[in-house]
């Protein structure tokens, strides 16, 4: 079915456009992309402001220990699953009491993510102007840790804070090259499908903390 | 100095239903020192046919319009919709006819909606009018979105002695007229007029002002049907009124 359809569809498209197979392509307009100069402190300020506006909870940690203490406070009486991100180990968060790490086992990962209160991850980047996290799926970062638990905590070194989407797309002009999944997370999961009234946490986490270290 | 000559295209709706609007336009222009002419052979701009999909028919009417007006220096029209038809859409009708297209492009820039003629060509906003009422202004769709007319009429109203302008929240929403739409989808059109009237009423204005008589016909008809005492009035009629001496 598919290969015959492929030829018919491509043939039809060419006929509709008056083009021939392999015909040269006019130059594509250059992308409209602009990366502003913003100091790190200003990026931290922008991120915190934007993230807070989204009802996220930003925390500027003074040190890895400070980050660890903040996460420990969030954990009180709660269960958590942590990704394998090296930065979580570096900060001593991966081995906090109550934190479980699934390792490489897919079934264990699903089970933990589906049942624990908090998912702890790092992030590959964060975007200052929109208050977004950028998560690239990998051996260390599973997709489900930031998705299934009702609360997501991301612990991110502040030097991964980019100015915004334009800078990200400048650094990663071909996001698909690295991984099967890159996701920008901009605040807690939300819906307004009933009467345009905003409700958080419909499918993904309704609560997000970002600890900038 | 020889006064500048302007040719009036009053539109068929003004000719047949609201002739006083045309007289008001002439009064204002003459007060400003213009030499106003009315080419008697004028009829319609062809928009009803064009908007209904009858392009061949619209072309005939457009060609007649062109014959009557193409020698004129300034053509002044008390309607955004008809101005847009002559100034923009005649060209759409003759896309495949280079000779006609050439004639049309030569004449397009000389077609002026009344208020923009005052603000952009005559460069006045105070025409010495007096109208001691609270009014609200309805942006007619084609004037607003095809001709970009928004500030001019408000600036003119602003300088009318005694007049208070109160903006309505739905100033830029359609009144529901839409030519044959008003009879093909009568109930929807009526509903749109209803929404507009609610917005008008929230301003407490005694008059609704517009630069298109077709919108005003729709609104006045709907206001009358609801027995609402708000009156509609064309901008030209407001500007034509002066302080009794």
């Amino acid at each position, binding site marked *: 079915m598919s290969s015959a359809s492929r030829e018919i569809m491509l043939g039809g498209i060419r006929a509709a456009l008056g083009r021939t197979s392999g015909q040269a392509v006019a130059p594509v307009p250059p992308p409209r992309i602009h990366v502003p100069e913003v100091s790190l402190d200003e990026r931290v300020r922008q991120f915190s402001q934007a993230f807070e506006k989204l009802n996220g909870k930003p925390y500027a940690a003074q040190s890895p220990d400070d980050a660890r203490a903040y996460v420990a406070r969030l954990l009180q009486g709660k269960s958590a699953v942590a990704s394998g991100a090296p930065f979580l180990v570096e900060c001593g968060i991966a081995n906090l009491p109550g934190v479980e790490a699934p390792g490489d086992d897919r079934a264990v990962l699903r089970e933990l993510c589906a049942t624990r209160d908090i998912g702890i991850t790092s992030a590959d980047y964060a975007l200052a102007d929109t208050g977004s996290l950028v998560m690239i799926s990998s051996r260390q970062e599973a997709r489900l840790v930031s998705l299934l638990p009702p609360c997501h905590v991301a612990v991110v070194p502040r030097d991964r804070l980019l100015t915004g989407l334009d800078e990200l797309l400048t650094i990663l002009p071909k996001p698909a090259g690295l991984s099967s999944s890159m996701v920008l997370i901009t605040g807690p999961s939300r819906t307004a499908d009933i009467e345009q009234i905003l409700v958080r946490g419909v499918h993904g986490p309704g609560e997000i903390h970002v600890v900038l270290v | 100095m020889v006064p500048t000559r302007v040719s009036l295209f009053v539109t068929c709706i003004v000719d047949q239903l609201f002739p006083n609007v045309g007289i008001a336009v002439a009064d204002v222009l003459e007060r400003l020192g213009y030499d106003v002419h009315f080419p008697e052979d004028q009829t319609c701009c062809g928009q009803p046919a064009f908007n209904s999909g009858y392009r061949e028919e619209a072309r005939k009417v457009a060609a007649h319009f062109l014959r009557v007006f193409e020698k004129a220096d300034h053509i002044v029209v008390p309607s955004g919709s008809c101005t847009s038809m002559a100034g923009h859409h005649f060209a759409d009708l003759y896309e495949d006819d280079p000779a006609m297209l050439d004639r049309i492009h030569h004449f397009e820039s000389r077609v002026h909606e009344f208020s923009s003629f005052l603000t952009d060509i005559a460069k006045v906003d105070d025409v010495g009018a007096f109208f001691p009422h609270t009014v609200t202004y309805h942006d007619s769709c084609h004037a607003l979105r095809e001709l970009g007319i928004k500030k001019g009429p408000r600036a003119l109203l602003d300088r009318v002695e005694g007049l208070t302008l109160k903006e309505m929240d739905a100033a830029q929403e359609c009144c529901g007229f839409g030519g044959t739409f008003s009879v093909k989808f009568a109930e929807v059109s009526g509903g749109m007029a209803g929404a507009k009237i609610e917005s008008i009423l929230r301003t407490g204005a005694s008059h609704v002002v517009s630069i298109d008589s077709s919108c005003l016909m729709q609104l006045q008809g709907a206001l009358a*049907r609801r027995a609402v005492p708000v009156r509609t009035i064309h901008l030209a009629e407001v500007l034509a009124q002066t302080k009794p001496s």
Partner: protein
Amino acid sequence: MKLIPVEEIHEALANPRLQTAIYDSTARLMEKRRVAIGPVPDFEAYRDQANAIKRHTIEHLDHYLEQLEANVTANGGKVVWCRNAEEAASFVRGLCRDNGVRRIVKSKSMTTEEIELNHEVEKDGIDVVETDLGEYILQLAHERPYHIVAPALHKTRYDVADIFTEKLGVEREEVIEKQTMIARRVLREKFLTAGLGITGANFLIADSGAVVIVENEGNARLSSSAPRIQIAVAGFEKVIPRAQDLATFLKILGRSATGQPLTVYTSFLSGPRRPGEIDGPEEFYLLLLDNGRTKVLADPEKRQSLYCIRCGACLNHCPVYRKIGGHNYPWVYSGPIGAILSPQFHGVHQDPWLPFASSLCGACGEVCPVKIEIPKILLSLRASVVDMKRDRPEGQYERIAFSLYARVMSRPWLYRLATRAASLLFPGERGRWVTSAPALLRDSPLGQWLSQRDLPPPAAKPFRTLWRERQAAARKASQKGAR
């Protein structure tokens, strides 16, 4: 050939609860858009750029589709070319059969609504679950989306309470937050037990083979991450050349749709999980759909209709949509964009009234983030309808009327004669507005006008007469002055 659904439209207009629901929701969406684009001074430049990129891509579509396919394949995915709904459904059914899939979770996709995929797949006894909250409510209610972005826009919390109580057997719940949590609970279990996830796609990136999905709930992430197999279904016009073009499209899409600078989740998905990745699907299919798009492409003037990024702004700003609502449009695409897409996909003969269901106010074109000239296309479609009807008996009165109109309006003497005759024939009292039509004329344009509003009578003296009198008076006055 269907006529204007007058009864159905009347029903919508006569339902005050529905009118309030549509009016308030669209008003909120308009306000959110207005607030969101305020701080973006070069929003217009982004619209121009978006239009230029779409134009370029559509004009070279074959090239970008081949590039896309090569890159999706290189990422380990498979592109499935589907000419129509049948081919799409038969592929999905076959895949379910081969893999023993009993349950499918779906995220929001207008394209799958367009081909009624659920209906086909359910024939094999497969449980297909819509997981977007609005879509889920509508699936339970057996309705199609009311709006491109907010599918259950017409439903109030009380409607949702009725639906959940009846279909899910839960206790009646009228608090929106709690209703949402009911849906979360029910759907979470579906995500974790489904063998296949189907998503839509907002953009397809040609040079890297990625599918981009924007959403707020997280159900598209779940649909593409939890099940073993993922299918993304997309109309082939969704392709864009580069990821960097998203620096334009993402800035205008969220703002135009819901007033968000970025939606909560923007997923770039490319193929099955790579070696070493812990989770993600094991198989990945990108289903590229034609289903009539090539026909649209063949018209150089109207192919810009395919630039649409489904933001829904034209619906929110359309005074006609805001009155008649989404379900009175004949297809899943409603509002102004629906009024131009449906006739092009199905032919103008199917619903010839549709291009006329607009006052041509132009609000749609004014807000379209990719600058589709919707009013111009509506006008062009109207001309096609008239051409289609030229040799048919339907609409002959209108045709005669416009032919007469053209004759009269291009002959000044005839115009003067006709207006004098009309004035003499006028039945009402001079100077008084007409309030009702004779019963015989109820269905005529005159009757239709009068069904809603009063009509002014012809002026006692047309402008040209007043003008002549005025000129004569002026001459007299100046002669007197000269004497």
